[in-house]
């Protein structure tokens, strides 16, 4: 079974703080993704990565950055947290290439509140 873990289930931070969200997957997947989920808006892609040290912007990258130093780990960084970044953050991973049906496997999510 694929396991995707996220470092925190709940976080409360103050405006202006630097926030790190960590994600680890144990299935040797090439692809990793960060989404945020907001009511009525579904899952919106923030950043994704196809390989170590590689990153691509998703639909809403403003205010975020990412880091992928190891294949199994993908970090999301909020450089200066703002109240409009209060959301549920979801990490996912998927296989690249033959045998993949583009299915993504999700972690449990981090509920971030920025005060």
């Amino acid at each position: 079974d694929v396991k995707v873990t996220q470092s925190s289930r709940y976080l409360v931070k103050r405006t202006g703080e630097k926030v790190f969200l960590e994600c680890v997957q144990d299935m040797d997947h090439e692809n990793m993704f960060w989404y945020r989920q907001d009511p009525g808006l579904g899952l919106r892609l923030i950043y994704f990565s196809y390989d170590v040290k590689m990153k691509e912007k998703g639909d809403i990258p403003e205010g975020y950055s990412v880091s992928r130093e190891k294949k199994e780990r993908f970090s999301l960084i909020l450089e200066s947290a703002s109240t409009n970044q209060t959301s549920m953050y979801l990490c996912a991973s998927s296989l690249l290439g033959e045998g993949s049906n583009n299915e993504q496997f999700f972690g449990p999510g981090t509920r971030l509140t920025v005060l």
Partner: protein
Amino acid sequence: DQQVKQNSPSLSVQEGRISILNCDYTNSMFDYFLWYKKYPAEGPTFLISISSIKDKNEDGRFTVFLNKSAKHLSLHIVPSQPGDSAVYFCAASWGVGAGNMLTFGGGTRLMVKP
């Protein structure tokens, strides 16, 4: 502009009856579609998928129908059970195996009443 839309934010169904969740898409490049189920405080889990070369895929109580000409897909759950109460997301992608992104709809909250 949203490329994948779920126009019903919520749906309430009696236990034992059929639940039908709908999804529309605009990008004709999409050729693979997935449904995910999400409980509160958990990540989404994969439910069922369909390739554009098919018009139906069935897995137990869950059936997905694809109408390419209408750019519409639907998820049928028969019979509905209280444990099916969750938010359902439709997702679309292209190029199976290429590791391409999924584009998600806004979700439909299904409530199955006992």
